[in-house]
């Protein structure tokens, strides 16, 4: 008997659905579909309380006009780890539409004539009671002049666990790209038991048309010297220990006057005023590798909940 009561929904180009259900103490994927250019992969695991899904795009990147819309349901008592394979690369545009494509969604057809359409990725997550979602993708890299929007909404039960990682790097170092994207817009909205507790909106824009440098410094100037910025939202029973560790570490930091910035900086803030709403961690590093290592070490206590082998697949 399928956990989800919805009939198979019509999927548009770039659409996808994942539902992880529980049956007899085991987690199984009851709904799993994706259309081009979205691709989903789920390896079989020895631990059957956890499932992994890799979210990929054909061609290894997204181009202007692509619209990915993924709906994910993590039902009670299951744990889902969502990963990617390599950084999500966003290219500026492509002269023609992707040829192999089912009906394009309304969004993609609506692009302004004469203007390279932006890339859009929408993800809607529902995480039920005693369930856990670990969203640990590789960072997004927007190449020169790319325009990318990402809207992620998380609806969780009071006793659900969420680990949400959203990070971006400065571009292709080999081509000297240092924050030369056109626009990056990312929203992470968290609702617990129907009430919005967090809405993190990040907008990075290089205003090429505004030549008045007094008003707006370039992104490279504003974000220097860091090449990678990450945001992690943590809440729920399975990350209580991680949050406690972070709080202790943070409280132990003492900054004296410095001549120059450190290689990596991080901050910790609570979400809302209620302890059970979790924390937000922000990290900035001069190199993506540094941030990756920091994240990998900081989230290591997740191993006790998803296993060492499964955790190893994150932050590869």
């Amino acid at each position, binding site marked *: 008997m399928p956990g989800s009561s919805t009939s198979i929904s019509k999927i548009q180009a770039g659409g996808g659905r994942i539902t992880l259900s529980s049956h007899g103490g085991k987690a199984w994927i009851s709904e799993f579909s994706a259309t081009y250019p979205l691709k989903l992969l789920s390896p079989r695991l020895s631990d059957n309380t956890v499932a992994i899904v890799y979210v990929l795009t054909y061609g290894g990147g997204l181009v202007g006009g692509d619209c990915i819309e993924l709906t994910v349901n993590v039902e009670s008592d299951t744990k889902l780890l969502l990963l990617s394979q390599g950084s999500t690369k966003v290219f500026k545009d492509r002269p023609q539409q992707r040829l192999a494509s089912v009906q394009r969604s309304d969004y993609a057809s609506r692009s302004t004539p004469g203007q390279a359409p932006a890339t859009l990725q929408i993800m809607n997550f529902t995480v039920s009671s005693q369930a856990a979602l670990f969203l640990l993708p590789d960072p997004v890299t927007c190449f020169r002049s790319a325009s990318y929007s990402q809207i992620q909404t998380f609806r969780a039960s009071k006793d659900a666990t969420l680990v949400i990682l959203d990070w971006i790097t400065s571009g292709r170092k080999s081509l000297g790209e240092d924050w030369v994207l056109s626009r990056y817009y990312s929203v992470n909205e968290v609702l617990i038991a129907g009430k*919005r507790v967090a809405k993190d909106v990040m907008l990075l824009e290089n205003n090429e048309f505004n030549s008045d440098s007094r008003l707006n410094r370039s992104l490279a100037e504003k*974000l220097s010297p860091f090449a990678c910025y990450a945001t992690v939202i943590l809440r729920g029973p399975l990350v209580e220990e991680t949050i406690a560790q972070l709080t202790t570490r943070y409280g132990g930091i003492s*900054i004296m006057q410095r001549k120059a910035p*450190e290689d990596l900086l991080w901050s910790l*803030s609570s979400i809302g005023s209620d302890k059970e709403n979790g924390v937000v961690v922000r990290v900035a590093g001069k190199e993506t590798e540094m941030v990756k290592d920091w994240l990998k070490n900081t989230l290591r206590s997740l191993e006790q909940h998803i296993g060492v082998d499964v955790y190893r697949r994150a932050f590869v």
Partner: protein
Amino acid sequence: MDDETFLLLLLSDSNLPTGSFVASSGFESYIKHGFGGDQNNRTIMFMRDSINAYARSALAFVSDTHRIVQDVHRDVEQGSEQKSDFDKYLQKIKEVDDLYDAMTLNDVTKRASKSQGVALLTLYSKGLTPPLAFTGVKNRKEIEIEVNSYMASLVAQYKSLVRAESAPGHLPICWGILTGALGLTLGESHLRSQYLHIFLHARSLLSASVRLNEIDLRTGIPSSTGTESDQPDGVDDKSRGPANTWPLGEILAARHDLQHSRIFNS
């Protein structure tokens, strides 16, 4: 001098007790962490990035709140049915306030925002409303008296919600309440409210800079901070929406409390 001008002068007074004196908006942390290069440029660089970021994250909330309170004005003046429904207005303001709280995921910023917010509401109640017993001015219209007393109640009630921790009472929202309650109606009043808010923010940054010995008033502030033209043209377009545009500033502001020694609160 007309009331409106007097009001603007009053609100732009550097002695306005808003509690911004103890807030450096992350500037002290910025310097302590080694950012900004040499002292000559630090203030300007920080101000540009900080003001742009603050404007983008907060101004829409100022104008939204200002407009809600302006609606109250209109309802009371027109004697409409709506006016007796306090709770509805309070609820609308609280929604804007809660959204700002959900979008400002930074303990230090929230702390500073809440303390300055409640200071503004207190300022209104204690300093900017006519005393109840004051029936003096002969040609003050009755409707004006009614509006003023209504506003006073609205602000007092919202302040109670804040004290009871039912509403956060953040600075941009309280500023919108203040300017809306005072009836700033000249032209595009919500834009004027935004402009003044950013002006005060900028000035507070300059003040912090002086106290951190970053700029020496005897030799003068660099001739162009570029901040006069930093006025964004009314950031209230919902589709462009409030956002954090300076993640580095966010991290440094949140790390304020990690400084071994500090003179500012935030």
